[in-house]
């Protein structure tokens, strides 16, 4: 019973906070560009507005196109339910890093299907790029997670991210942490892999796959990507200073929720700073990014054994 309450609390909190994350990143970015920017909570209104709109569905799409938003948002919900975000033992105890990596890829795969189904050139281009990135990020994610698992002594996600293991208590993880940051940037289609604010179709990766979606489907896909960003920020935060609550006591939950909120604020500021100070990489230069990430994760793994 307490597990279910904990699960629902975690689900509600993360689902409520995730649009705020996107809003915060945009707000910080606007401030860094010398603009005032929209208030962070405008994203909620944006999602509600999109929900109120019509679907315009291309005539030549199949069932896959309609199934994709459900699958992608379902995978995001799976992540929220199964990871230690608010509670250190939240979700299924058996979710391990291989399943986490698999579900992340599954989400990308469905997004790619959605991008290709309308049959426009831009959708196909985004799909091809996203699939390349997902296919090359998956091994990096696996190796990085494994390094954490070796240190934690267990491959369970709860033991890796939920038990207060941090980069400070285990300095050997510093390279793996860097690799995990690279994974998070690539998975969430941020700089330098993708520009989330671009209007130029030729430079798009993630946006290009969504070009055909409208109305509630679009809202679902955008919501899913905001959830994914939130989850990654919280996981990274767990590895630095935040510790999820271990019990269902109000003060512990309050502390953990405050931790999540502070992670999101600091994390989105860091992300905005990064996006304001570096340029997006040309897509065909991403092989360097991917190679750096791959060898960084391998070196991180070796470092774990050496120290």
């Amino acid at each position, binding site marked *: 019973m307490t597990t279910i309450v904990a699960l629902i609390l975690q689900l509600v909190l993360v689902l409520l906070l995730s649009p705020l994350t996107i809003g915060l990143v945009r707000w910080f970015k606007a401030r860094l560009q010398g603009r005032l920017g929209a208030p962070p909570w405008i994203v909620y209104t944006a999602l509600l507005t999109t929900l109120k709109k019509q679907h315009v569905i291309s005539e030549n799409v199949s069932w896959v196109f309609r199934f994709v938003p459900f699958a992608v948002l379902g995978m995001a919900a799976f992540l929220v339910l199964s990871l230690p975000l608010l509670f250190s033992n939240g979700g299924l105890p058996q979710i391990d890093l291989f*399943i986490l990596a698999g579900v992340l890829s599954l989400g990308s795969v469905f997004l790619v299907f959605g991008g290709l189904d309308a049959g426009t050139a831009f959708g196909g281009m985004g799909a091809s790029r996203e699939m390349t990135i997902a296919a090359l990020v998956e091994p990096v994610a696996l190796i990085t997670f494994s390094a954490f698992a070796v240190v934690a002594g267990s491959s369970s996600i709860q033991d890796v991210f939920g038990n207060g293991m941090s980069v400070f208590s285990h300095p050997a993880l510093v390279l793996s942490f860097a690799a995990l940051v690279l994974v998070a940037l690539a998975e969430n289609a941020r700089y330098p892999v993708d520009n989330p604010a671009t209007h130029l179709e030729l430079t798009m990766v993630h946006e290009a796959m969504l070009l055909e979606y409208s109305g509630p489907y679009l809202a679902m896909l955008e919501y899913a990507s905001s959830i994914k960003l939130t989850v990654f920020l919280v996981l990274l935060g767990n590895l630095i200073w935040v510790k999820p609550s271990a019990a269902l006591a109000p003060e512990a939950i309050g502390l953990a929720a405050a931790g999540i909120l502070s992670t999101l604020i600091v994390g989105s500021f860091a992300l905005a700073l990064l996006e304001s100070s570096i340029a997006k990489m040309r897509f065909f230069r991403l092989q360097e990014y991917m190679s750096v990430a791959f060898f960084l994760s391998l070196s991180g793994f070796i470092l774990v054994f050496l120290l």
Partner: protein
Amino acid sequence: MSFFIPYLLFASLSLTVISGIAALGGRAMIFHKLSQIFLALSGLLGMAASVAVFLSPEIGMRVSIASAKFSPVFGLDLFGAVFFFLVSLVSVLCAVYAVPYLRSYRTTYHLPSLNALVAAFVLGMQIVIVSTGPFPFMIGWEIMSLASFFLVVSDRSAESVRAALLYLVMTHLGAAAILAAFLLLAQGSFFADFSLLTNLAGTAPAWVLPVSFGLFLFGFGSKSGLVPFHVWLPEAHPAAPSHVSALMSGVMLKIAIYGFLRVTLFLLPPIGTTASLVILGFGLLTALYGVLYAALDRDFKRTLAFSSIENIGLIFTMIGISFFAASRGLEVLFEVVFSAAVFFTIAHALFKSGLFLISGVVVRAFHSRSLEKMGGLSKRLPVFSAFFCILALAAASLPPFGPFFGEWMFFQSLLGHFSLHDPFVNAILLLTFAISALVGGLAIFAMVKLFALSMLAESRSPENALEHCERPAWGEMFSIGVFTLSVLLLGPFAPAVMALIRGEAAVPSLWLLSVGSAAIQPSVLLLFLFACVLAVWILRRLMSRVEHERAYHRWDCGAPVNASMEYTATAFSAPIRFFFRLILRTKKSVDVLPVLATNPWIASKSFNMNLRSIWMDFGYLPLGRFFIGLSLQVKKIQSGNIRFYLFLIFAALILTLRIAL
């Protein structure tokens, strides 16, 4: 009931023979149907026999013909039963599939001979598994090889003949290597059975074992498509009719793995670290090379063939790791990874056969094997494409489908055995882990490409072929559906299957897989994933009750777009081609020919891209040129002068006498 069980096996083999004979009855459709019915019956009996062995493995099953002098004694133990079950299951479903499938190719193939050859092919595989000595083993092997050779040429096109000849050469080099290895081990008593051979292997001279291991590795490796002996596979598998491709890729490759495991586990003494690292090296090379070409290739069936190469590479990687663990005394790692390898073999047989059956329907719909001409089938055949989607996701080893749990056990046991004290073991495990993870990622790319480009968007062929495309018949949908269902159920029932193949090390209870400290309930994972998607669907229904959907053509930026502007397979895989260009060495050229001599800007341009095979270009072709050059040199003595020949004969005589005396 138990009285009948030994006869099940015999009846299964006999029915396969009857199926072949029935096929030869004539060109009438009734003989075609009869042949498939007998083949399906044979498969059903075979499945029953295997299940009987699963349930009471200590008894096994032996069929002996006592009166014959050199009686080939057939038997089925637990290890063989796993593979026999796969052969039976796939042949049943292929037979059901073939009834309507071959009807639409009546004019292309000569049905009586094709069906007879399929029966012979299945019979060969059955004999290989049930034989208990090298002699029947080699006979079965030869029947299987020859039948599949003729099946590859069955459409009689020049391309198929080329592929088949390459296949014939490679498979017979392999068969010769296996035969030589058996002869070396048997030391003269070729008609001995395997148990005697095991004893002989124990007393063999020191040089025999490594040599026969190498010969076995080459022989079975060339049959299963280990790089660099794989060159025939991507040519031969796609050339055959699709249900035969399913048998070849789904089962014949498994027979080679069966043979290799039979030999290394039961015949040779435990193999050492070096030999296991050789297996591991070949496995990793095969997996990486296979998956890269699977991601790049633009031919539907060749992509599947390359994906088979990749999967075989993974299986050999697992086998290599488990033997490596055994040689290092890591008993648990050996057991778990070995059963993971067998589990993955089963999973591969299921999804790859299913995918090849799908390729039959797809290729028939588009009249082409090229992915560049496909697209848009999912709108026309939604159920079919849903089956395809599940099989493709399973083939990409994504959760929650069956094959994922094979890889899961493999990765988990690698992760659990990184130890702090043995840097050598660590290095090997880390290398394997890294390359397998990379292969896993690229495998997703390959499968997504295959599904998305053939099913989604609109047909890319200029003449709209889909207007009159033939819908899959019930028989075809049944077989594909059963494969899909089996792949879907292989997930939740993974622990049960593991228990059945005696991989107890990983199965504490019937619903739980466990490796080291990690445990997972595949059924819960499956339900949880489905529940998440379902919850989203319900929420969506609640959130916006009104169905306000409007159909309008796709966003075209104001100018109409058509199917020729869609992203193609070449374009889709371009990033991978670019990122791995140092390994792949793809040749791309644009030829510019000026149309007018006076104006260089008016020119006709032609684009050409060659996805060449580096093993063919840098391995086999130079080797072939070397031999041709050598024979040209030798040919110089063929002068046509009879006195010179007499001198040669005389010289040879002298030389012989000199050696003999």
